[in-house]
């Protein structure tokens, strides 16, 4: 009896101290979240602010909302074209990766041929190449190919990514091959097999891949920056970085432009949060 009561007492104490620890942990977690989110709250409020004070800080005492910063971006600052460019480029690059990485992944997962290990090795080695190291030859190459300052320069080099080939090969090798075999016996071509059988089974991997590729491409700065020169070919990050040096731009406008650039990624993030984290984790564990 005594022992039981004592046991219940300690259990109660443990439970109470556990719930206390839980609340403390929660408070710490919220505090850390504040550190990571505060700059974005500042960005959002700034983009909707009627005026910043002269020092460049948000005037919270006299804060009033306005959408004028957003509308003037398209009329004054010419952000319309960069926005369209970013959308076109990111969508085509994502689509290209979905298609081409599946094809390559399929061959690398299913076939045995001379030089296959070499191709696999090339994928892994290229993943390790620091991309900023080759900005000069990439600039020259697009000039020589005659695609400098065009959509092709923004799209072609990124249409097939090594990470995509790698992920798709890994994923397809875990799929059973018997459906492909029976389709083949029925006379289906290899293209039909990939399109009708492999692609649908790859949906989870393709979702991870497309979110990943879209995000990276949407945010990409250095290549769109060096591979284009005219204003009409700028993507959103490039336009944004160059707007800053522009005299007539004010901070609320700059913040509104930043919001427009950050919005699609934020929406993607909220909707596909799990896919994004999965993509990063699987890329890390397998890579």
């Amino acid at each position, binding site marked *: 009896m005594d022992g039981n009561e004592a046991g219940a007492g300690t259990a109660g104490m443990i439970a109470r101290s556990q719930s206390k620890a839980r609340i403390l942990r929660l408070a710490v*977690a919220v505090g*850390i*979240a504040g550190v*990571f*989110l505060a*700059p*974005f709250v*500042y960005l959002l409020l*700034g983009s909707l602010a009627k005026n910043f004070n002269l*020092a*460049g*800080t948000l005037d919270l005492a006299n804060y009033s909302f306005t959408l004028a910063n957003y509308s003037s971006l398209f009329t004054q600052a010419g952000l319309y074209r960069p926005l369209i460019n970013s959308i076109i480029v990111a969508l085509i690059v994502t689509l290209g990766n979905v298609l*081409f990485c599946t*094809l*390559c992944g399929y*061959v690398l997962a*299913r*076939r*045995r*041929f001379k030089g296959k290990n070499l191709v696999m090795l*090339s994928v892994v080695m*290229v993943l*390790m*190449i*620091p*991309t*900023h*190291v*080759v*900005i*000069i*030859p*990439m*600039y020259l*190459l697009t000039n020589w190919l005659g695609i400098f300052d065009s959509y092709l320069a923004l799209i072609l*080099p990124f249409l*097939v990514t090594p990470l995509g080939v790698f992920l798709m090969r890994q994923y397809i090798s875990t*799929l*059973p*091959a*018997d459906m*492909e075999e029976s389709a083949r016996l029925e006379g289906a*071509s290899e*293209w039909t097999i*990939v399109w009708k059988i492999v692609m649908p089974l790859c949906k989870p991997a393709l979702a991870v891949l497309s979110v990943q590729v879209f995000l990276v491409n949407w*945010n990409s*700065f*250095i290549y769109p920056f*060096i591979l284009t020169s005219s204003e009409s070919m700028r993507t959103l990050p490039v336009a944004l*970085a160059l707007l*800053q040096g522009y005299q007539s731009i004010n901070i609320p406008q700059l*913040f509104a432009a*930043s919001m427009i650039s*950050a919005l699609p*990624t*934020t929406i993607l*993030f909220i909707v596909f*949060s799990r896919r994004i*984290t999965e993509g990063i984790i699987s890329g*890390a564990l397998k890579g």
Partner: protein
Amino acid sequence: MRGVSTGRFRGSDLLMLSPWLATLLLFWLFPVAASLVLSFTDYQLLSGQGGFVGFDNFTALFSDQTFVRAVINTLLFTVGTLPFTIAFAILLAIFVNRNLPFKTFFQSVYFFPSIVSLVVVALIYSTLYARGGYIQMILGMLGIPYPAEGFLFSEATALPAIMAMDVWMSTGYYMLLFVAALQSIPQELYDAAALEGAGAWHRLKAITLPHLKPMLLFVLVLNTIKSFQIFVEVFVMTKGGPLNSTMTIVYFVYEEGLHKFNIGYGAAAANILFILIAIIAWMEMKLVQERQA
């Protein structure tokens, strides 16, 4: 039959592989090779003239004050951010992973800064760091001294300011990788240790940290490769200034090669960066592997 090759190479296979093969040759191998060749020339884009000059570019680089500064700054940036980013990422991963309520939510929030465009983050911080900006306000309230002209306009604080932003931005990304590694540690190990009466500190030292080693190596190498290539932050926030105090190697490559069009000279600088990254990554692998043995 899982994962079995269903046969020999077919004609269609080459066509299916060709997108990668073309990308590999044209946009990866060719630029690397071209960069190597160009670095031994004095090719000038504007005049279109140039010939082989041997190691002249490299010897010139080592006596170029701006380049030496760029190398030092890049090393400082890497050495000054890596330990903090990785330590914070591990601590945060352990914190998130220990049955924290709303774990997935908090994990996503901490990770959020790394999915926003670097340009946007750099723009936000430019105003936060500015004269009269919020960071000065906070430091003023705490009584901590700060440069009056703004953090990005002072030679002493410009680089550390960019470094602090980088740690803030990338911690959540690496946290996610460490969470993945933590989840692969079997729970039985902790249960057994708890039965033997091992304390939290001991469990951390004996179980958690050793199991994080492979991921630690991966993160170390990945973060090194990324840190050595810092460019966007510098372009948006300081343009290498004030007085070259934030000049980094990639920014130098950009300025020499694509701004002044000294192609050969810029390519040589890029190749030094390439070699530097390879050496450091290799050293890190050796270091962690030896510790493991």
